[in-house]
């Protein structure tokens, strides 16, 4: 069934099989994205598995993942395409004098002088790909506007070459940490998926999946503590990836339960700010059982 899901349940099972436990709406929206060929805008707090979803989708659909990491100041030359001017110069010098101007001009704006950046790669690839545009909220609004042509028609206009249309339909995921409101125009072209921290049972399942050797009781305690920590007003609440890291750390230490001593030692896996650590130690640490005398 790889590559062509026929139902939501298919997608859910497929994502599961590559190690990603989707929530109900995650599977649904992924299915719609694959079927409708519409880009998906995935929003949510940091560390809920937005980027992971793209990777899992690529794996499940058996497609290559093309990733564009956005940052402030990203421009067309780094995202779309660029002319390889060095090669063009060489071409001119190699031919100087002999060929007519028209021949050279036609020649140097050919595809072999084009440097494809991620977006062009995704569009012109022979096999369908999954395109991940990560942290779109970090770019300027100008860049967002530039994406519109790509997202609605899957085509790129290069003045010298004309329109390049997608040979295959990529699945496009855009992620945003919600650090800035995206434009209406962009949102209108996308399906929308809001990923939040999973509920207790769901996260327990995720942790168990990634470290199956951890005893059930410890794993349950772990997700309970993590959800307590997330309720605090922290600079950076622990992400799912950090819960998994913590589970692995506990497994390595061979911890049989999470008591105060263990928590104090391993807290730094899930809390990464000096001030946050104090808050967490004060508000969560004391609620745990005191360390047993060993």
């Amino acid at each position, binding site marked *: 069934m790889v590559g062509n899901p026929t*139902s*939501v349940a298919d997608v859910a099972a497929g994502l599961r099989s590559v190690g990603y436990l989707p929530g*109900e*709406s995650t599977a*649904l*929206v992924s*299915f*719609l994205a694959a*079927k*409708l060929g*519409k880009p998906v*805008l995935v*929003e949510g707090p940091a560390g809920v598995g937005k980027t992971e979803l793209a990777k899992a989708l690529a794996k499940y659909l058996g497609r290559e993942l093309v990733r564009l990491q956005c940052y*402030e*100041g990203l421009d067309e*030359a780094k995202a779309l395409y*660029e*002319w390889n*001017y060095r090669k*063009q*110069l060489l071409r*001119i*010098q190699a031919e*100087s004098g002999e060929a007519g101007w028209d021949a050279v001009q036609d020649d*140097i704006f050919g595809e072999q002088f084009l440097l494809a950046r991620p977006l062009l790669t995704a569009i012109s690839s022979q096999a369908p790909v999954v395109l991940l545009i990560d942290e779109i909220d970090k770019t*300027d*609004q100008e860049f967002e506007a530039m994406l519109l042509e790509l997202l609605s028609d899957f085509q790129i206009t290069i003045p010298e070459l004309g329109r390049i249309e997608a040979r295959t339909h990529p699945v496009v995921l855009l992620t945003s940490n*919600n*650090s*800035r*409101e995206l*434009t*209406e125009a962009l*949102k*209108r*072209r*996308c*399906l*929308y*998926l*809001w990923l939040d921290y999973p509920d207790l049972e769901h996260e327990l399942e995720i942790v168990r999946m990634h470290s199956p050797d951890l005893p059930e009781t410890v794993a349950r305690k772990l997700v309970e503590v993590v959800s307590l920590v997330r309720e605090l*007003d922290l*600079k950076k609440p622990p992400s799912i990836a950090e819960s998994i890291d913590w589970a692995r750390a506990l497994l390595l230490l061979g911890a049989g339960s999470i008591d105060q001593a263990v928590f104090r030692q391993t807290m730094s896996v899930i809390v990464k700010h000096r001030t946050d650590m104090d808050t967490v130690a004060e508000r969560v640490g004391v609620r745990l059982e005191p360390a047993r005398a060993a």
Partner: protein
Amino acid sequence: MLSDPLDFDGALVAFAADLRAEGVTVGTSELLDAFSALELVSWGSVTEFRETLAATIAKSPDDRRLFALVFDRFFFREAELQAVRLEVSEPQVRVGDGGELDLDDLRRQIARALEKGSDSDLRDLARLAIAAFGKGQGSGVLGVDVQRIRRALGLRTEPQPELAPDDPRHDGIPRDQLRRFEQALRRELERAQIERNQALPPKRALSDLDRALPGGPVQDLAAVHRVVAQLRRRLATQGHELRGHTRHAHVDVRATMRASLGTGGVPVELRYRPRRPRRPELFVLCDVSTSVTSASAFFLSILHALHDVFRKQRSFVFIERISEVTDVFRRERDFRAAAAAVSRDAGVADVSGYTDYGRVWSEFLDEIEDELHPRATVIVLGDARTNGRPPREDLFAAITQRAGRTFWLNPEPKLYWNYGDSVIAAYAQHCEAFECWRTDQLEDFVRALTRPRVT
């Protein structure tokens, strides 16, 4: 309403109209997406149907919340309408016909079902509860009936230690569970009412109470938000005019080489890097004292909107002293959460609750004197009521001299300026003061802010 009972397309369009009426922008293209998406999923499950619609129509967390509310209201009404039209009615639950219903047992059952009951369980139990406790004495007002039945069931958030320890009510019932049950009750009561009258009650717009996040402040911010959203859009586009007149441009080597191909590789024509629109650095000071309470939500939402557009912005709130809230706004995308965070832990030194402008200026100068420069813009939001304390306009003048531009937004009508302890005139000679308590006045300010600077 539907013209044809089986016209689903019409129903969906009506649903979109409903959403628009509540302030969610639904474009035609999004509606078309919804139609094509619905062809792909099974309609057997409510969640799947709802999530499909939500993914294509509601595109922000705020819209999501409104969507859920409108979805419930709309499809409940549609279903009831069809029921009335086709004369279907729910089987009546009779209490006392066959065997007395144990009321205590019902109370316990409901409390248990709240813990892990499905929606349909809750619905059945709500119907039972109405039959048992709500018989014949309906007050006609749904909210009153809901609360009466809830009390009769002994469902409270406070712990009730006199009950058996295995009863969920022993430790009190979580608020969200109670809310769920109240919704089920309200819905069943509404359904019964519709069946009695054979007609739908008039549609009720979502109240601000519904809109507000659970636990959020109940205040009508929707109007302010609409304007602020506009302001944001406007700032985003007009920001381009704010670019400085740079004499010094950077040569774009790649572009120059590319252009030189026309002349055989000799760079005759220089290409420059495009000028990025430069947004000014903003310093915003916002009064949050009691004299401007009514305006502070307005002010904070302006602050919030500005943060979206200007990356280089530092925000301060003040009463007697100032306190920086830049981080709060940077971290919190949601306005309500940001406002709550500001009032909770901004650390506003609020000794007397009276504004002390003199002190605010001196602290502001101390903190960021070095960072003020001619490209910086300072915006003060406040009523300039000093409570009889020295206004220290000399310090304020020092600030305005260092900064490029200074604006003052005063939430009081011009009529009241300089009456009583208002000293706005003393400050207005150093800055541009705006009367700003209506949203159209805010537009005037935006025009001034985005006006290209004359240097």
